[in-house]
């Protein structure tokens, strides 16, 4: 998923090969990770797709099934991975992930500790941020989750950047060998305050801790604990609002309510990037309009950041 050297970066010459991980894109809300396998097939509501048809095509290609249904084959990225991974726990999404990486000042070469690993959604983005020379040590006390996460990091080829450990961090703290080594520590735990004293010991002076908690009581408790050894304690909530874009026709009204907007007839209106009609032509009276999507995530969690005191 991440280039290990310049030749591995995505390019116009890169072709899909046997063994590659591809993201099969049906619609923006329907994607799936598939490992390409010479003899393999993918079956979905659009028909049967032969992997052998994919090999040799560039990433980003549209490929067809036996019934002329189509999908797109995309190169995997941490953002796409977050949308397709198997949910073994609650996971972090784009808005929180991007803010966490920025606010924790994670740059190439950083050493980051994380607990818990969960489904590895955040871990994948942490790995991208520390690459090529840093490392992410992620812990979960759930043996099976840790094992699944390791398998995922094999599949996404992040194993050289990520080490998954099994440990009860709330109970026992982070392993002593990480004392004073971490540039940043991220916690997504039910009782983060239990892990904060240990996290402090792992951090370099001025290193940054972030704790993600869905409930304000958890935040309150964590902040109390942070006060003794941390500075710059700040809590944020980050959300995203998405917009729907449509082409609508304006009609000059003869009535007294002025002009009004009417969406184009349903069958000609694009539903998503993948399945609209190409023969749609904007007429002179058509305008592009946008409005916020009616539904959105209203809450994910609070992000509390703090810096380890500089002595």
């Amino acid at each position: 998923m991440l280039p290990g050297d310049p030749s591995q970066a995505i390019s116009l010459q890169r072709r899909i090969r046997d063994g590659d991980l591809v993201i099969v894109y049906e619609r923006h809300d329907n994607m799936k990770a598939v490992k390409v396998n010479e003899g393999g097939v993918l079956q979905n509501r659009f028909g049967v797709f032969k992997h052998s048809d994919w090999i040799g095509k560039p990433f980003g290609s549209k490929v067809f099934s036996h019934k002329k249904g189509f999908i797109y084959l995309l190169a995997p990225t941490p953002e796409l991975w977050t949308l397709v991974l198997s949910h073994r726990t609650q996971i972090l999404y784009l808005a929180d992930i991007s803010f966490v990486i920025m606010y924790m000042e994670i740059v190439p070469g950083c050493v980051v500790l994380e607990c818990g690993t969960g489904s590895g959604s955040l871990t994948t983005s942490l790995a991208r941020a520390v690459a090529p020379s840093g490392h992410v040590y992620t812990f979960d006390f759930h043996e099976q989750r840790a094992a699944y996460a390791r398998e995922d990091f094999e599949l996404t080829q992040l194993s050289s950047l990520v080490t998954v450990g099994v440990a009860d961090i709330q109970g026992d703290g982070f392993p002593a060998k990480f004392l004073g080594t971490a540039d940043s520590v991220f916690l997504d735990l039910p009782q983060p305050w239990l892990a904060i004293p240990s996290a402090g010991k792992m951090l370099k002076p001025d290193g940054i801790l972030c704790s993600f908690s869905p409930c304000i009581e958890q935040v309150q408790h964590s902040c109390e604990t942070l006060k003794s050894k941390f500075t710059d304690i700040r809590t944020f909530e980050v959300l995203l609002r998405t917009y729907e874009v449509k082409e609508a026709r304006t009609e000059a009204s003869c009535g007294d309510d002025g002009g009004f907007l009417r969406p184009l007839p349903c069958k000609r209106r694009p539903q998503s990037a993948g399945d609209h009609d190409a023969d749609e032509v904007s007429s002179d009276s058509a305008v592009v309009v946008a409005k916020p999507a009616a539904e959105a995530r209203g809450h994910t969690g609070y992000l509390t950041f703090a810096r380890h005191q500089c002595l």
Partner: protein
Amino acid sequence: MHFVKWRRVTWEGCSVLLDINDGDRLVFARLSPASTLKIGKKNCSLKPLIGCPFGSLFKVENGKDGLFLLRIFHTEESNNIEEEEDGISEDVSKDNREIVDNNTAQRLTDQDIHAMQRQGATGDEIVEALITHSATFEKKTSFSQAKYRLRKQKKYAPKVLLRRPFARSICEAYFKKYPSRIGFLRLDALSLLLTMANVTAYSDILVVDMVGGLLTGAVAERLGGTGYVCNAYSGATPYPMDIARIFNFSNEICERIVRCCLTDLCPVLNGTCELVNQSKDACNSKTEQKEKLSSCESVSMEQDIVAEDGVPEVIAEKAAPLALKPSKSAKAGEGASDNLINLWKERGFSSLLIAAPELDAWSILQKLLPLLSYSAPFAIYHQYLQPLATCMHHLQIEKLAVGLQISEPWLREYQVLPSRTHPCMQMSAFGGYILSGTRTCTYDAHSH
């Protein structure tokens, strides 16, 4: 391969962000034995900051040779500071009914304070004296007392916090003090841009940065001396990127920041070959000119970006001008070599980022999209929704991209204190819009 190391201790010639009195003033400066910081009407040497870890805290002290900076340690109380009056008081034994606001409450005069200062009293001693001589201090609630103390401390014993200039601190500082210089690009929007465009080591990122170099710098920080950030511009003059020079980039990173004019990247735009070559020469000489200009203007990056009590106060830190002693970061932003340009034309860029409030999103994307590799992600920031909506519509109709989405980030900070937790009273109501998506392979779709 040699990897970049991020130093945690300052050095001579290093660029720093000075946070004075909890963000009241934010000053970018370059450390040298001669550089100074203006506090009130006096100058204070920045020399004691050299060799200190980032994150160190200093107090401005009064010495016989004037002001000096003394390193101090954080106290737990500083974590209990409340934002502006939230009207909720925990201290029920007292309220403010007896407090009458007139100017007679303080018995210590300005002359008294000056006399104390001449006799070598420390800032903290003056604060204590002010408290002792305040007629109303005892009657105040404990929160008002803490606030009074803090206010006097800020005035008579200011604190200076030494910060690393990272994309985060630079963006926050500009957004707080001079948002228009960075196109009102809020930190959460910048974070999203970098994430949505999959900025990662060993990739070649095409950037249109009309936000002062903040985006270019933020991308270079994430590349860590691998790959390239290609800062593209249309017309003959590159866009300014002074902010990229505030980052403490090593040579390895600076070499990875290059500029290129659009006519060189997409020659079809501009008629004959000859014309293209001419315009390229013009570009290059312009670039050099601009380069010289910006190194002479070095003070601009060392300027205070200060707004105290709403009055912007711009002070040039006079010492250690970059022009005299070219800093390491002077090399960032050279013209891209023909080799690189050819390589990009052949391989395509790994992603595209646009933050160009002055350009039309669709017109610019139309030119740049073909320069991207298939399956490469892109993200465009704009303050207005309509240009992005139009752009998205075109992309849909022409089937140039998938995963198209317009997102508006929302960010709210909280005050967390025992029994007094609530969202902050002030928030930024608007962080712009981002159009993101992934380029599809058009060539294959047609050939089928």
